[in-house]
């Protein structure tokens, strides 16, 4: 495999769409491979790429695939506007421009030897999936793995088959809940914090990683603190408007932080004072 040469972070590299999976009515997972059998860019869980659709626009999307695979990059994207729609409409064999990976990722190394609590809301499970892969691939290096996942309704669940497979792993708990169950859902109904009472982990030995809408991350982090987790052991993934991904355009600033360079993953201790600032 040819090693990726150092590239100008502002120029996209073509990757070819190889697999498309429909996760939900508006969300798709695309697996991309570099051209010519090159190695894909190595990445850390929590990092993101800037994905370019020829002549349309660019999107910051978290990488949702396996960090240990060096022949592909996988992204789960929800169609919400022109650029995301163009992306999920790509066909197999189409080329997409990839820049990155960028950003500070999840504290996977710091979590070694401890219980790992993953709390995901909606499409927030996508940036957390690489953590789950890493933990399961190095199972003995970690304590319990608890995955708490909340979505709006059952049809919005991502990675259903994998969720079931993860639940069967050693020392691993997977709990899902919906805001609204509809006619046939017989599982948990309620916000994701209502799952805490079923989660089994050691408060003093846990690292929590939360990803989802900002409101959800706020009330989850708050409840985790009430459960006895220290702020330094809680991490969230923030999001803001991004145009460049490398700290030049100024759009993603959140207080003094550039979400593209200093984040998107932040320790809750650092971000807590900013979360309350309306219109920061």
């Amino acid at each position, binding site marked *: 495999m040819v090693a990726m040469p150092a590239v100008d972070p502002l120029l996209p590299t073509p990757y070819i769409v190889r697999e498309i999976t429909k996760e939900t009515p508006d969300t798709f997972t695309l697996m991309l491979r570099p051209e010519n059998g090159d190695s894909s860019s190595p990445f850390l869980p929590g990092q993101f790429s800037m994905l370019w659709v020829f002549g349309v626009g660019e999107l910051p999307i978290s990488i949702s695939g396996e960090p240990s695979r060096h022949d592909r990059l996988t992204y789960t994207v929800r169609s919400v506007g022109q650029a995301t729609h163009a992306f999920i409409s790509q066909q197999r064999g189409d080329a997409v421009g990839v820049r990155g990976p960028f950003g500070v990722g999840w504290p996977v190394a710091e979590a070694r030897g401890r219980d790992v609590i993953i709390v995901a809301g909606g499409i927030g499970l996508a940036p957390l999936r690489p953590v789950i892969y890493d933990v399961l691939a190095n199972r003995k290096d970690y304590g319990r793995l608890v995955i708490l996942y909340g979505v*709006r309704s059952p049809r919005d669940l991502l990675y259903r088959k994998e969720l079931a497979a993860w639940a069967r792993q050693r020392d691993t708990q997977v709990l899902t809940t919906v805001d*609204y*169950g509809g*006619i046939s859902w*017989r599982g948990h109904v*309620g916000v994701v914090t209502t799952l805490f*009472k079923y989660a089994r982990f050691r408060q003093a030995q846990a690292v929590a990683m939360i990803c*989802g809408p900002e*409101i959800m991350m706020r009330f989850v982090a708050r409840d985790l603190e009430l459960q006895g987790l220290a702020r330094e052991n809680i991490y969230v993934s923030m999001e803001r408007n991004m145009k460049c991904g490398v700290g030049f355009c100024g759009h993603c600033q959140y207080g003094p932080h550039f979400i593209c360079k200093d984040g998107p993953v932040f320790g809750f201790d650092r971000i807590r004072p900013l979360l309350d600032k309306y219109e920061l």
Partner: protein
Amino acid sequence: METLERIVADHPFFQGLDHDFTELVVGCASNVRFKAGEYIFKEGDPADTFYLIREGKVALEIFAPQHKPIIVSTLGVGDILGWSWLVPPYVWKFHAHGISDTRAIALDGKCLRNKCESNHDLGYELFKRFAHIMEQRLESTRFQLLDVYATRR
């Protein structure tokens, strides 16, 4: 062996309750079990009992014409089931459906209501605790309504 008194006193909901009051409450308490699939109460039934869930899972459901009832919330270990016994007209607004085998402490609401009428201090202690439960449920419900996962406001 766990006595009823012990279970009630240890339950988070009754934490900090005076020994005398705990006795009063225990006087209205009993152990109950429900099988998976059993209905604990139904919408429209008189609400004269509330439950401290010790084991199992219960779904709060609403009757929906032409198909099965819709679950609006699921409760589990440690949760309190039911507060309609506290407020007139003392009628259940939802079904409570045991999803798994469930063990609970049942508290006789009528009995407790009478005791609260004659002992307002006990009434105040219970209302304080239920206010907290209602606040939690209201907050959760609001978050569910917010549809935080939506893409457009």
